[in-house]
């Protein structure tokens, strides 16, 4: 016999007397504000392990398998409701949250935009299930860490020696760098774009004209109106939700595979740092829409029969717009070289690395100077040969080769300096 009400329903407000209304019970997960992780065997602290994808005891090695299944891109997406946008605009505030450690009783305060905390006194890992302004605005999905700290060291060591521009003693710093695993907030956006474009497109053709009694060929440009429609689906466009991470480095290190998304569970955050968004939904959606606009515009322009056009105009209707708030894994590390500190980021899923590297400018200048030598020597040889009557005929081709060598050297120098500057500035 079915009991009434069913277990998964709770009594809710009713506007009519004599009628009781029950609604599905809200998910239990968020009812626990702080989740602490202890080993069921030895009570020591447990933390998420990228190596085996579960909780591992730092003391006795007890392993607890992950509880969630991979949902990938099937992860639930949300609509842009007026209510959500208004509430998202409130953000997380600037207050700090007071936490009382259940283990040692010490009170500590953390910023409200941090989702995890490790008690500085007993080392207990705590995940703060921050109350979001609306349920959908808490992280609902994440990509778990797959890259271990040891992998990071190896990747960093390789990265610090894969260019001749880097100082020789840099590689050993990889061993001393501290890698902090952190979940970074990201927004993903989907939208269907229906665009109509119109532009005057240039068509060139050769025309023969008579001028001053002579027949000449002229290139004439004819402008013709063209138009078209583009239907484009933008799937899972990623927009960074944090202002505190270098956008340049994030861009270099992109390439998260969202097929590995799993539903949010506090255990994935145990022992990691995790940040809540500080770039709100509306602001992020504006950035996302701008990226979609540019992509759709580019797709419209490719439809034209020529890429030279003027008076380009287009209308663009977005529909089926949805979003997700997710956490993506990242390792952050800094190392000191000389008097400077350099930042490194490693994609916690793919192991892709990006960061700043100190450039040995003496080496760069030396190598670029040496690259000029063949051109200079060939130039001098060309001058010598040209001044000698017997070898004057050979001087010209040698001079030509010298010019080519000079061009090659200049290209090399420009590329080298560009790369060096990128390494330094990233």
């Amino acid at each position, binding site marked *: 016999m079915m009991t*009434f*009400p*069913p277990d998964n329903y709770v009594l809710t407000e009713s506007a009519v007397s004599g009628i009781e209304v029950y609604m599905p019970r809200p998910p239990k997960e968020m009812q626990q504000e702080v989740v602490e992780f202890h080993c069921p065997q030895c009570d020591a602290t447990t933390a998420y392990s990228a190596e085996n994808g579960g909780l591992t005891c730092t003391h006795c090695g007890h392993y607890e398998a992950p509880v969630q299944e991979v949902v990938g891109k099937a992860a639930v997406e949300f609509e842009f*409701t007026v*209510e959500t*946008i208004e509430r998202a605009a409130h953000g997380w505030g600037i207050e700090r949250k007071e936490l009382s450690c259940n283990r040692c009783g010490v009170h500590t305060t953390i910023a409200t935009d941090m989702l995890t905390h490790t008690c500085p006194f007993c080392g207990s890992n705590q995940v703060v299930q921050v109350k979001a302004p609306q349920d959908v605005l808490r992280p609902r999905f994440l990509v778990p860490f797959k890259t271990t700290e040891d992998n990071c060291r190896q990747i960093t060591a390789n990265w610090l020696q894969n260019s001749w521009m880097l100082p020789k003693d840099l590689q050993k710093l990889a061993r001393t760098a501290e890698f902090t695993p952190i979940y970074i907030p990201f927004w993903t956006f989907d939208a269907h774009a229906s665009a109509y474009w119109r532009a005057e497109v240039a068509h060139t053709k050769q025309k023969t004209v008579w001028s001053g009694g002579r027949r000449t060929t002229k290139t004439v440009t004819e402008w013709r109106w063209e138009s078209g429609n583009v239907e484009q689906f933008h799937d899972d466009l990623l927009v960074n939700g944090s202002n505190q991470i270098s956008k340049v480095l994030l861009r270099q290190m992109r390439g998260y595979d969202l097929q590995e998304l799993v539903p949010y569970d506090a255990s994935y955050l145990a022992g990691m740092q995790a940040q809540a968004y500080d770039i709100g939904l509306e602001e992020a959606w504006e950035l996302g*829409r701008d990226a979609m606009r540019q992509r759709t515009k580019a797709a419209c322009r490719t439809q034209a029969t020529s890429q030279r056009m003027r008076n380009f*105009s287009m209308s*663009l209707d977005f*529909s089926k717009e949805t979003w997700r708030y997710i956490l993506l894994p990242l390792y952050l590390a800094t190392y000191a070289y000389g008097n400077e500190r350099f930042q490194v980021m490693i994609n916690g899923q793919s192991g892709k690395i990006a960061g700043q590297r100190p450039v040995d400018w003496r080496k760069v200048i030396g190598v670029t100077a040496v690259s000029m030598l063949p051109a200079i020597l060939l130039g001098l040889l060309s001058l010598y040969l040209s001044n000698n009557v017997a070898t004057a005929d050979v001087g010209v081709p040698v001079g030509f080769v010298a010019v080519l060598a000079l061009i090659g050297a200049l290209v090399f120098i420009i590329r080298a300096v560009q790369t060096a500057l990128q390494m330094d500035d990233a």
Partner: protein
Amino acid sequence: MMLNTTKTTWTDTWGQPLTLAGCWQCDGVFLLPPQRPLTICPYCGQESLDALDTAVDRPVYTQPPELLLPFTITDVNIQENLAQFAKKTWFAPADLSPQNLLARLQPIYLPLWLVDANAQATWQAEMGYNYQVVSHKEAFQSGQWRTQEVRETRIRWEPRLGRLNRHYDNQMAPALEEQRLLELALGTYQLNGIRPYRPDDLIQAAAHLPNRPPADAWTEARESLKKIAAEECRQAAAADHIREFRWTADFDAQNWTQLLLPLYTTFYHDDESRVHMVFMNGQNGNLRGQRRASMQKARRWAILIGSSAVVIFVISLLLALLGHFREAMLPWAGAGLTIALLVGVTAVLPLLAAWYVNRFGHFYDDGQQALAELTNVAWKAGEQPPV
């Protein structure tokens, strides 16, 4: 023919000496004022009314009504409505005149059940909540993007369930098989003018006795209560929409009340002397009747127009003959032949119009369809013998 009602027993409870009569055409059972001649059925207009013996022919429900909704439409409105009906019928039969309709007008009360009940139920439904989503329309012109925000209302469906313990008063349930059709044809009666039944209410008017007892009408009453309960549950859950409402309900404290509703009936005969009923809601004057065109009248018009065409044709032929002698006559002859042809063609229009009216009616809506069902099914119009 007058029936002696002095022997009746249960009709005494109605407070008036009334005659029990039954119609073998529409199966209606009526209580008529004693002075009313037992000839024409007040409900189907046929001469098929027979006196019944109250002791032998006991109707399904004999109790007097508790409540009554009085006739409120004025005589002036009645005359206007009937005149409009007669006037707006194309090629109306000779019998369809406002005078005839008025002369045959009969007031009759129709029964309706009002049920009170306590309901205890468990229910479940999907509640729909409106919400707005924001979308964007963009335009790129002169190197700049212009964005327009668009808001669209959508419905979020959520499951809800609950318990209900409510008392319902005066829920309508049919006391006649054809109640739904009558309601469709004549509109809903407003119950705010209800008063207790008085015996003198039936001095002039007939009363149609229920052909559905409460136990039989309970199925519809239950459905009607379910609809009300669904709406109340929607309000309780503060939802904007509801769907898939299901309930398991127990009812007690049921109380059935018979209410009489006012109706005027009248009729006219078509060319074949068939009866066609016209009904008028006695409260708001809504009138619904079968419109029949007279094919005889249409034929007369067709002959008249056709004759005119023939006359024009003959004159045109004469002009054509004259054209041999005076050429100026030939164009007139040509014009005359064309006009004769056009007039000749239009001669079929009255016949077509009359056929169309008899086949499809002037217009067709739910009310007209309900009337057609009433007359075709309940009154067996196809089987009516000529008067």
